[in-house]
């Protein structure tokens, strides 16, 4: 009963916050709270939400789990799709598969380094981010040639049904899939077990290294998918396309109530967290404040959010 409530609360708080922020936006800036802007916020939130799905898994896996390579994997994924598909509708699917495979490989290497070599996740993924940045330069040789296939634009960012773009539907499906993955599959059970306590998980027969490698590989795949959908929105690539998403995805997970110590959390929380951060950013943007004030307000608001439930336990307890 008690644990149930703990798990539910942060998601609800975050959702409530999202609604409150949205209403404040409507009050402060008439025209903020209309249907199309709401849809646009959902679209922007879904990019963050898709990337943060992988981050959620990694953070639940515990052991100071964090994936700082997602930003560069997003960029690499987008660039691969951009160059391979080169505006050709028929090549989109193969390009997507290649991008996802590369993301999976990068994530799996992260996982192997973390489990076999026992490198701390922050160090391993940070080092990997540098390598992926290098890969991006080698792949592009500084020339960002290619183009976005029209089918991507129409399926991802243009209105599909009820003016809702495809990426939002993708996000909703991902939300359902993540719930099923975490709550209804053996992998999900093992992931939480590993996150709570690796020794007990190992002693009860969980293959901890396998779970971790799969988790980091999934994070790589989801980051590459994030790059794919982001490309459908921006329609062009640049060398730091994904870099803003690295730590923002961690923030979205934390705002959603998943605890950085691992073993606890939900993707619904992360979805709400992504919404909160995106609405916050949109709100600050519509206020037409200078860049400096925008950054200060964003940082201060994030600190305020952390004060609600980002706090660690007292040592006394």
């Amino acid at each position: 009963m008690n644990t149930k409530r703990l798990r539910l609360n942060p998601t609800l708080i975050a959702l409530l916050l999202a609604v409150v922020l949205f209403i404040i936006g409507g009050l402060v800036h008439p025209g903020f709270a209309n249907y199309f802007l709401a849809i646009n916020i959902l679209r922007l939130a879904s990019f963050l939400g898709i990337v943060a799905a992988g981050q959620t898994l990694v953070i639940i896996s515990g052991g100071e789990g964090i994936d700082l390579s997602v930003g560069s994997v997003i960029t690499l994924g987008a660039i691969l799709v951009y160059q391979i598909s080169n505006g050709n509708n028929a090549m989109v699917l193969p390009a997507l598969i290649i991008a996802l495979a590369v993301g999976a490989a990068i994530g799996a290497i992260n996982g192997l380094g973390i489990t076999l070599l026992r490198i701390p996740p922050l160090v391993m993924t940070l080092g990997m981010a540098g390598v992926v940045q290098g890969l991006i330069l080698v792949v592009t040789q500084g020339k960002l040639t290619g183009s976005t296939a029209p089918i991507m634009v129409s399926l991802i960012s243009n209105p599909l049904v009820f003016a809702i773009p495809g990426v939002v539907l993708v996000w909703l499906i991902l939300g359902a899939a993540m719930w099923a993955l975490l709550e209804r599959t053996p992998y999900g059970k093992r992931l939480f077990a590993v996150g709570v306590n690796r020794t007990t998980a190992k002693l009860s027969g969980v293959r901890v290294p396998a779970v971790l490698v799969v988790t980091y590989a999934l994070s790589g795949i989801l980051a590459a998918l994030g790059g794919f959908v982001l490309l459908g929105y921006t329609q062009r690539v640049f060398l730091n396309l994904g870099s803003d998403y690295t730590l923002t995805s961690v923030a979205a997970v934390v705002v959603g109530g998943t605890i950085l110590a691992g073993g606890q959390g939900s993707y619904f929380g992360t979805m709400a967290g992504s919404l909160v951060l995106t609405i916050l950013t949109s709100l600050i943007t519509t206020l037409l404040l200078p860049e400096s004030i925008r950054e200060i307000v964003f940082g201060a608001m994030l600190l305020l959010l952390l004060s609600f439930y980002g706090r660690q336990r007292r040592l006394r307890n």
Partner: protein
Amino acid sequence: MIKTASVNTTQLRRVVLRQSYLFPLLLLVIAVAINYALEPNFFQPAALSDNLQSFLPLMLLAAGQAIVIIGGGVDLSLGAIVSLVTVVMVHTMGSNPGVSQTAFAIALGFISGILAGALNGFCVAILRFQPIVTTFATSYVFSGLALLVMPSAGGSVPADLMNVYLSNPLGIPLTIWVIVIILLLWNLLRSTRFSRYLFAVGGQSMSAYVTGVPVSLIRFSTYVLAGLLAALSGFVLVLSTGTGDPLVGAPMTLESIVAVVLGGTRLSGGQGGITGAFIGVIILSLILNIIFFANVPSWWQTLVNGLIVLLALTGPGVVAFIRGRLSPATERLPFVRKVRS
């Protein structure tokens, strides 16, 4: 209670004595050797001092990062603090400042660095926010403030002040003085109660708390010290570039973490030191030098650099892994040995 205390001090002594600089030193020797092979005048005083001058800002920042990491935290806002300090100093100086105005500007820069560190420390140690997300949030606050003070790089610094940085008191470059003084201070600190508390808090905050260590206060002070060192790093940047730049520190944050880890300090806390952090920065910078002098095709440079850094970061893990495979199976109980409470 008493038993825990005595076990804890012996454990503590072991942790303090087990300063594993071996791997970083090995890396350093290799990097220096390759550098020397590619750049024969590497050991000439002018070249050495040039190199150290360009390494110093990151060395100071890594020293601050090391202290925070030893205390069991991490600070993602240090780069933003550096930016903030440079613009505060340069903006306050204005054009053609007098001596008192210059001194005031420098003092104001240091105060803003310390206050920034205090804000981090307050949020992490007193309010118990998670360090990673907290310092990520405050990094926005600090870089926003930096942009508010000076929207773009610029300003000027009196030539006399810039000459200070290039001066050679007693025939030895100022850079070396700074490095030596900081290492001396660090070693002095190591014999104080503060340092024992610091390593205890980072290693086992629970036992430290139980044995009466003021955990929150120690954590708070690590962030303040890091803010101070970030301010010093910003000051050095102002002296060497003569400008304030609201974006200059951004790429330095993650570099400082990589340098600290390269220097043999573990992210889990309770172990490591500033000496290692300095070695880490020198290794990182020498790797870049080597790639530059080895004529690596330009589009491959970042990848080669990334791979070498990753290899260096994973090196100790690879060694341990191979050793684990070669040793008898009874010694191979990875997760049992690794348990942290």
